[in-house]
């Protein structure tokens, strides 16, 4: 069995004010897997994603493609791990969409021609080609969400992390988002309250609560396990149950 793309051992992270967010997390994600991450608020989902992307450095080891994330090595994985934040407004900070999509590739040191290619590819993947010259405030919520994803895709990461991708989306945009994500080839970790989305996209799901992974297995088994779900403040989800469309 080949090495996992993402390998975490004993990850612990405490905030500056003393709140422990992660208390020893062990997990491994293989290439090509789409893994869901569910848990109640405050369970450490977002913190975990931040640590995996190298924005937070905690105790323990986080390895991406075999490379350990330390403060000094962090720059190297910038293009390899892409984090899509919960709020697109955090991620769309340039005056036009094209500039936002280009931001990552430019920082990777690509040539102008390569940058342009990445920009058009990412834009067409997320159906945003028509909006490339527009500023973010001209985009609808769904378009902004897609744009945030596109801005990360432009860096062509091997590992895509997503924090609540379907929040604030109307049913149609949400459905479209699910289709797009399903069509993407990347390895994904999706943190979400939207269990139906996780159910549709991920064959494997992890439950996190109070900074620890408390369950890890096949989506249908875990999300269908009423006792487990209830114990961790979550709802039950079963194949065939979709949220209101």
């Amino acid at each position: 069995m080949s090495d996992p793309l993402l390998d975490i051992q004993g990850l612990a992270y405490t905030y500056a004010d003393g709140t422990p967010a992660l208390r020893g997390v062990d997990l491994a994600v293989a290439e090509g897997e789409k893994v869901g991450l569910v848990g109640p608020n405050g369970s450490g989902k977002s913190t975990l994603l931040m640590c995996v992307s190298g924005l937070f450095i905690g105790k323990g080891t986080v390895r991406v493609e075999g490379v350990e994330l330390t403060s000094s090595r962090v720059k190297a994985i910038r293009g390899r791990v892409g984090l899509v934040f919960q709020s697109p407004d955090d991620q769309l900070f340039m005056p036009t969409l094209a500039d936002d999509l280009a931001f990552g590739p430019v920082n990777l040191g690509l040539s102008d021609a390569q940058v342009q290619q990445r920009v058009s590819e990412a834009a067409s993947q997320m159906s945003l080609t028509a909006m490339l010259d527009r500023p973010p405030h001209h985009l609808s919520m769904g378009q902004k969400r897609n744009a945030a994803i596109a801005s990360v895709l432009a860096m062509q990461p091997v590992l895509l992390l997503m924090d609540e991708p379907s929040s604030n989306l109307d049913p149609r945009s949400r459905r479209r988002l699910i289709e797009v994500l399903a069509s993407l080839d990347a390895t994904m970790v999706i943190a979400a309250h939207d269990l139906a989305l996780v159910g549709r996209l991920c064959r494997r799901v992890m439950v996190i609560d109070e900074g620890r992974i408390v369950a890890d297995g096949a989506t249908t088994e875990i999300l269908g396990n009423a006792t487990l779900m209830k114990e961790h403040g979550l709802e039950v989800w079963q194949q065939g149950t979709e949220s209101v469309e």
Partner: protein
Amino acid sequence: MAGEVTAPDERPFVMLAMHMANELLTPGVAVGFIALSAAVLALASWQTRVRFDPARVPLMGVMGAFVFAAQMINFPVLPGTSGHLVGAVLLAILLGPHAATLVMASILIVQCLIFQDGGLLALGTNILNMGIIPCYLGYAVFVGVAGRQPRAGRLYAAVFVATMVGMVAGAAMVPLEVVLSGVAAVPLPQFLLIMIGLHLLVGLGEAIITFLVVGYLSKARPESLGLVGERLQPAGAGLSSGAVLASFLVVALLLGGVVSLFASQFPDALESRTSVEDAPGAAMVKPNENEIIVGVSELQERTAPLPDYKSTSFSGVVGTLITLSVVWLIGVSLRRRRQEPAEPARE
């Protein structure tokens, strides 16, 4: 605080904005002040990069957006009129004078380029008057008066004096710049006094708002006070009526002084009127006593509001009041009558 006529969902119709237009300046003066302001901004940039994490400095732009947004919050003064924060001194207190000046400069540039408030060539003077002077002078005065760990009373006094000095000084520059250019021949003393008088009132409002905001932050989010956080203790009782009364009194006294100074100008003004006969063109025709001189004095008769009162101070005050009323009427008529609309769907 600047005054405005409010429209429910439109950008506030700023009445007392000091933004100068290009046409009040000559090219030499405009360029000179642009060079001056540019030099000070370069200094401010350098100092900002020294004091703040250089990687974060571009994000000062977001602070500029904050000021715009903060200027949308209104403070009712009279029915139909309200004031809003200008923010220069507040920013200086919160971020220090260098960063504050940069932020105010970027706001003024955006106001010019997007809202056409103020001319391109007047950016030098506008940035000086409404950014550099209030921020640096206001900060210096604030630090001087506040000292270390000021309590509520002293803190308010510091904010009050800093804001008044900063805003009045900035406003006082306008007449100087206009007279320096000589485009519009207005008598300097009267112009100065009107600007100072108006901004005494504006400054009072701004001082109160600034203090209230600083007070809120020191209680609700003390860590956000960053640069000057350690100086400020949580303002316990907030703004006492005593403090507000005292400041009203001070402003009233100052205003009274300004008005009486203004009124005392009119003997001089009368003299300047009679000097018409000594004006270069008139001297040549005076011996002939032809229609031209008669025409000039007839014109003077007609433009003086009341035949007996040729005093320019009175006509100056009346003129200003008439102009302000016209402006207010324009604002009211542009204001939409319906209520604020319900929040439209986001997508």
